[in-house]
């Protein structure tokens, strides 16, 4: 056939390749192998099909999802704590708007006192 493929010095290499890759001889081996193939086909279980690869991905997928949920939960708890602290701080610290309003109320009160004083004279 195509035995011009190696130069004269390559014969040893070709023989080594053939020895390495030669198929098993002996009819008993092939009879047994045929029986195994037919048994495999009959059982119909494809080892390592795409669904097996999917099954392999399930575990790391679940771990990643759990980690994501944990991180999201921590972030949510942290955010709620911050909101609560902020709300409490708003309650105990008077805002500039409320000070102005109380000053205005106080000045209105002073006006009333002055009117009462004028009327009493």
């Amino acid at each position: 056939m195509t035995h011009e493929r190696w130069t004269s010095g390559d014969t040893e290499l070709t023989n080594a390749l053939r020895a390495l890759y030669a198929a098993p001889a002996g009819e008993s081996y092939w009879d047994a192998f045929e029986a195994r193939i037919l048994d495999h086909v009959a059982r119909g279980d494809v080892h390592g099909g795409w669904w097996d690869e999917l099954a392999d991905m399930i575990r790391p997928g679940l771990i990643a999802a759990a980690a994501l949920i944990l991180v999201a939960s921590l972030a949510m708890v942290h955010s709620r704590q911050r909101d609560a602290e902020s709300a409490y701080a708003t309650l105990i610290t008077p805002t500039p708007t409320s000070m102005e309003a109380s000053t205005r109320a106080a000045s209105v009160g002073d006006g009333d006192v002055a009117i009462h004083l004028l009327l009493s004279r």
Partner: protein
Amino acid sequence: MLATLAPPSLVPLTVPAESTISERAIVIAAQRGSDEAFASLVRLHQRRAYAITRAIVLSHEDAEDAVQEGFLHAHRALDRFRPEQPFGAWLYRIMANAALDLVRRRKVRDADELPESIPMPFRDPAESGELRERLQRALTRLTDRQRAVIVMHDVEGFTHGEIGRTLGIPEGTARSDLHHARAMLRRLLQDIRSTS
């Protein structure tokens, strides 16, 4: 484990016309659900199927696994096969895909276990199995496709066209892969070969 090794068969992919006719009848019977006919197809093609998968994977055991997978896929896809086509070419393409799929999965699984490079201290090549051992290591340095092409061509006697059809690559690519694979093997095994 391995039984005794047979000499290379160099069986051509093409079969005589009368065999093709009888094979077509067997294929049709298998498509109609005959287990016996399918068993005949397995018997007819298992050696060639083994040779193809063995050229692609790295071990005898993986080749056996790939052949079993290939026949299972073929059995499931049998109703989609058109009997006027050559059954062998169709089946061997499935076998090659099963072997390539297995190699891909092995690679992912073993990625952390394989060393980047394999140390090759010089020893007398006359030592038993030295060339075989070195060759085995050198073959792992080829790409999967280059390895498949050189084994299919030099060991199994496939033509470039047959290799192309089986592996789903252009004939020219098979030719070029063969050239590069040989060059790489020559380079990696130079020290042994120059002293022998």
